[in-house]
């Protein structure tokens, strides 16, 4: 898969995630939060990861940054980060979680923006100090210069009166301003990849529009790659070049945004798109629904994880074999037996 896409546009992807499995070993059993996820992120592109709650979006992000908390850990897979001048990519999955190398990458080459900016700033320090500190942690600059850079960053993310706001505490700011601060902090070390996990979910639509515009604008100016994680198909449609659809820890479909919306292949993607309330719909019309609800993480279905809810499930096949992510066209992949044959004999 990695090679195919690399050939398609002549450039190896910036980040390749291959067969990633991140499990939580809890007292009640093992939660397979990410269970064999594969995808890639091209330089300068925006990739969307979409799926309903608990499908493993956030844990995927945490895995890339190596900040999965115990009792969770990466149990398999590769996370290959390619750097401009290095011969071989570095496998983030193999790095020591607390080691110097990943700490330099985290907040340096790869930065993260969370849903709730309040929890990512310490309430006891001014936001300015926290950004200044981050800059000094990753770059060899003096305090004065770091402060000037911070003011510039705040201006860049659209914070009015940055010279004054830099000395405010997190609680003094509105949700929208805090999210801008968080983005400023993420940008402070010129990341190559920005991961934004539900960056606008806690915000009102008008503030959401401001933040999405800001992200798009910065992406265009800096040419960084952006991974945007959301459950909102609208945000995906507006922001991304490529889309990854997750269900129960797996990538069930991935491809260019236009194909995902206009020629979705996987039954889950199709059903999800039909079931979302759309602003284009006729008032008071019923929505097609997906039967049932997402299974509890401890009760994963056998075979295809979507089979108990799938209208097209083939008994004897879908409940017994696990489909794999296979190409449908050049850059479009789906994990479904409607598009490929089961390969191994069913477990008896």
């Amino acid at each position, binding site marked *: 898969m990695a090679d195919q896409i690399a050939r398609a546009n002549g450039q190896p992807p910036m980040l390749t995630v291959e067969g990633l499995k991140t499990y939580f070993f809890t007292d009640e059993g093992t939660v397979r939060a990410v269970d064999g996820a594969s995808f890639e992120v091209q330089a300068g592109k925006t990739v969307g990861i979409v799926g*309903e709650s608990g499908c493993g979006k956030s844990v995927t992000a945490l895995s890339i940054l190596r900040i999965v908390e115990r009792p969770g850990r990466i149990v398999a897979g590769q996370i290959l980060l390619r750097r401009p001048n290095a011969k071989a990519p570095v496998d983030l999955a193999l790095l020591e979680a607390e080691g110097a190398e990943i700490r330099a990458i985290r907040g340096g080459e790869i930065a993260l923006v969370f849903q709730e900016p309040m929890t990512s700033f310490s309430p006891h320090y001014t936001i300015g100090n926290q950004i200044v500190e981050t800059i000094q942690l990753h770059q060899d600059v003096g305090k004065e210069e770091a402060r000037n850079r911070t003011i510039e960053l705040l201006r860049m993310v659209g914070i009015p009166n940055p010279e004054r706001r830099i000395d405010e505490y997190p609680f003094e700011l509105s949700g929208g301003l805090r999210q801008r601060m968080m983005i400023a902090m993420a940008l402070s070390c010129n990341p190559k990849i920005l991961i934004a996990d539900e960056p606008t979910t806690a915000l009102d*639509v008008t503030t*959401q529009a401001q933040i999405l515009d800001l992200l798009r604008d910065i992406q265009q100016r800096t040419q960084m790659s952006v991974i945007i994680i959301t459950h909102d198909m609208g945000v995906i449609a507006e922001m991304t070049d490529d889309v990854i659809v997750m269900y129960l820890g797996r990538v069930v479909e991935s491809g260019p945004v236009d194909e995902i919306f206009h020629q979705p292949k996987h039954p889950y993607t*199709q059903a999800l798109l039909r079931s*979302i*309330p759309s602003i*284009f*719909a006729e008032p*008071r019309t019923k929505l097609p*629904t997906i039967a049932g609800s997402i299974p509890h993480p401890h009760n994963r279905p056998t075979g295809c994880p979507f089979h108990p809810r799938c209208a097209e499930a083939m008994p004897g096949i879908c409940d017994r074999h696990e489909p794999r992510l296979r190409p449908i066209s050049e850059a479009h992949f789906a994990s479904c037996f409607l598009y490929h044959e089961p390969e191994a004999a069913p477990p008896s």
Partner: protein
Amino acid sequence: MRMVVPLLEVRNLQRFFPIRKGLLRRIVGQVRAVDDISFHINKGETLSLVGESGCGKTTTARCILRALKPTSGEVLFQTAEGEVVDTAELPKAALKPFRHQMQMIFQDPFSSLNPRMTVFDIVAEPLLASGVKSREQRRRRVEELLELVRLRPEFMQRFPHAFSGGQRQRIGIARALALNPSLIVADEPVSALDVSVQAQILNLMLDLQDELGLTYLFVAHDLSVVKHISDRVAVMYVGKIVEIAETKTLFKAPKHPYTEALLSAVPKPDPRRRSERIVLQGEVADPAHPPSGCYFHPRCAHAIDRCKTETPSLEEIQPGQFVSCHRAREISLNGVEAQGNGMTIG
């Protein structure tokens, strides 16, 4: 048959909250959470209240249910007995005989159900409180209610934690329906649910409305959800209604600049419709210190001098469309064009 009779009429409703400061907790100001709003809801109809966080939606809902006492204004409710009562004015005791005719559905199905009670106890609680003494009678009614919300009656003895978010919301709805209410006030009933489950609950609410002739006041911030459920929509901004109209009209041809901006801000689920969005500058005004004149003027692209000094009032621009804007008749605004069921999956 939907009859065109207002079940609820809200007139000049206000609810202020005092701002207290200092050791003596002296009142130093007022949060004008709901600031002189009027609207009605016809029998069997769904009116949605939309607007950004803090604009006063929940406060309005709570005033209608008299969970909060309004500062001023009237809340005229037509009881099942055909009487019209002002619930804003009545003493609590006098409210009791018909209070059960208005019920609430909450946003968070996880915290709104008591984890130590079985589904039977949860749904039967209002029955018991209203004097249904026979356990057998309660059991039969709970069975009926669970079937109504498409839950298996065998689930009756289970506890809420055994249910998914969507199922818990169904339990909450069953409970709200226990005493045959005529008005259901639903405050963000689907915002905490997964996307695929939202559709199930919205469909259920539409079905129940047809089956039971319910009237809904639907509070939400998600305009896509609102479009699916409502007959009419009221848009709130800083404690005031700025526009109210039939759903189709409001989405297709909004007349208030704030409505237009809200519609434009919604991310559209179609990559072929990426368009230039209207991105409002600045932030929602603080209801403790609202701007002069039209509260929207600091963010409005159409503001003129008059907007800074003179507060517009809600006027009927065309039959059924009420707008609070000095320039509603002269500016032309864009809405969203409906298109079949929304998605074109080819």
